[in-house]
């Protein structure tokens, strides 16, 4: 059996997804026996020219992590699509925007200013901002321009499969690779997950009738390690999050934050979580309900921590223009399904 050509790429991401590949550990040796790594910028030195030189479809499988934040990201996405037989949106950023996607709340200019000038750890007394073009005596320097909106990979190019997680659980990654190698891929385009939601794997006790009068944030209380977070008044995204991580956070006494994305039948994770949360409100009047709502700090960051870029809310906002978007011309539009 000949080896397959494997590629991995990081677009706008933190690098965690590449670590998830490294975390395959000794499985990497097994992988090396069946696959040649033809492109992996995080680990080895490849140039874009190397990829451009490949024949179309030369790469059998590409694990693409990171969101489409810059025109460079978009460019590489198209390039890798062209060269790959199977393109996988690997990890939350590529799949649904993840934390970088929250920058869509403010748009790229505001985000750039924040990152380059305003954060407490930044020392930038003259307030210089990164420029797309900069004239030097040696010539013109250029940086890739930011997209008007952060996109998921699928909004830019067709994607064959998705593996959720921030980052994906390495066991799940290995299982997905094994399935691929065995030619046993599922039909639903989602790899590296378990059936149902995080709650299915969560060992905590659910009383089932306890409703809450106010919500607190994890740093404000020491949670009871045995009981359901929601019933303790802590927002937990578990009910609206696909199982697959093995309930990792909740076992560390932190509420689930939803990085595995929504379960199959749910299109919009934030909306589903919102609904599930409201169901547990203990409010007998309009005023009481409003009081409870007020205790939910930053609902967007809470419900859409990982999926804002992929949400209906985002699309509704996109209807009114964000201005010139260098990525828009390349962006494919995804068909709406629920």
């Amino acid at each position: 059996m000949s080896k397959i050509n494997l590629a991995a790429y990081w677009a706008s991401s933190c690098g965690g997804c590449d670590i998830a590949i490294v975390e395959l550990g000794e499985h990497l040796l097994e992988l090396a026996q069946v696959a040649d790594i033809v492109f992996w910028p995080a680990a080895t030195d490849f140039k874009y020219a190397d990829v451009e030189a490949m024949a179309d479809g030369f790469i059998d499988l590409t694990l693409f992590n990171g969101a489409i934040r810059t025109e460079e990201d978009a460019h590489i996405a198209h390039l890798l699509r062209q060269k790959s037989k199977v393109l996988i949106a690997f990890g939350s950023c590529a799949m649904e925007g993840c934390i970088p996607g929250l920058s869509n709340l403010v748009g790229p200019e505001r985000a750039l200013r924040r990152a380059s000038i305003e954060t407490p750890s930044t020392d930038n007394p003259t307030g210089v901002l990164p420029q797309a073009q900069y004239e030097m005596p040696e010539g013109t320097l250029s940086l890739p321009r930011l997209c008007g909106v952060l996109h998921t990979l699928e909004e830019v190019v067709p994607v064959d499969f998705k593996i959720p997680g921030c980052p994906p659980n390495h066991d799940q990654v290995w299982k997905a690779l094994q399935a691929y190698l065995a030619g046993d891929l599922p039909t639903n385009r989602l790899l590296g997950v378990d059936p149902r939601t995080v709650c299915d794997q969560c060992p905590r006790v659910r009383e089932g009738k306890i409703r809450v009068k106010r919500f607190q944030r994890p740093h404000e209380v020491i949670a009871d390690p045995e009981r359901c977070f929601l019933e303790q008044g802590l927002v937990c995204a578990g009910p609206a999050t696909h199982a697959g991580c093995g309930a990792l956070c909740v076992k560390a006494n932190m509420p689930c934050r939803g990085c595995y994305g929504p379960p199959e039948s749910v299109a919009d994770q934030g909306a589903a979580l919102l609904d599930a949360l409201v169901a547990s409100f203990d409010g007998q009047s309009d005023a009481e309900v409003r009081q409870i709502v007020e205790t939910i700090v930053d609902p967007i960051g809470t419900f859409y921590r990982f999926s804002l870029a992929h949400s209906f809310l985002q699309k509704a906002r996109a209807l009114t223009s964000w201005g010139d978007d260098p990525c828009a011309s390349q962006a494919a539009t995804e068909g709406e399904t629920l």
Partner: protein
Amino acid sequence: MIRPEQMDRRFVEEILAEPGGEHLLTCWSCGTCAATCLVRRFNPAFNPRLILHKAGLGLREAVLSSAEIWACSACDACYPRCPQGIHISDVMRAIRNLAIRAGYEAPGPAAQVDAATCSGCAVCTRACPYAAIERKPQMVNGQERTIAWVDRNLCQACGICVAACPSGAMSLEAMNDAELLTRVAAGGWLEQPGFLQGASDAPRLLAFVCQWSIRAEEEWERLQGLNDEHLRVVILPCSGRVEPAHVLLALSKGVDGVLVMGCHEGECHYQRGTYLGRGKVALLNEMMAAVGLAPQRVRFAESSALERRAFERQVAALREAIAALRPAEISEVRG
């Protein structure tokens, strides 16, 4: 013809002894409850006064076998009006308990759990106004898992659990997400650009209307006729059934405004549904403001049982609010 032996004094005593049934005999049949109760709209045979009257006469079989004893949703609209202070839904519950013990079962419909998808997360058990859902160990594909179980005798088919379920495991005939979406989108209504995009001459509104919030019969009958290219009326069993995802989808398609019409505080037909509807809209509004969408575009509107023409008034008010928004919303990029 009712024969004397059908009037069973022991049946009366059993009801009186049942918690909630104590006040059965206080009823003097004034009919306030019957005229207050809106269940008649969907179940014309339901008359709480008659049930209490028959129960008071001791007509055991007639009462216990009747389908109507299950129809009271304990909205308690009648209770504060009863001149005899009878908590009628409590009496109904007492009668149902006797019926269950006698082997009768509620005719339904009731919510159903898809055992394969249910994670047992308990969102539905907390959501249910009637404590009709429990988590129980059940055998699913040869494996024992603790998942949701619906008590048919308590379920009132409000659909609140269907909305709440975050994994699509709960269903209720004719009220499932897909069916609601079909009603929203029928005739390509969703695919037309909106007023705020400068493409429609007037705001296009989607209205989710709780089936109990419009009381006057003529207004109820007129409701479906109001559908046109600028207004889409989707009737829900309760404002607590509204799906935030549907609201957001509509906005993402260019619908200008969404009205969620529910009952006045304290008048919810399903006890807490109106508060769930309010909570959802309040959170949606906050999130809209955070992303730079005008929160005025999604509105919870309430109607009291004592109001007429509330729906028309609320639709007009929302249209006006959106019309006022247009220049700002169109020119607004972000701060």
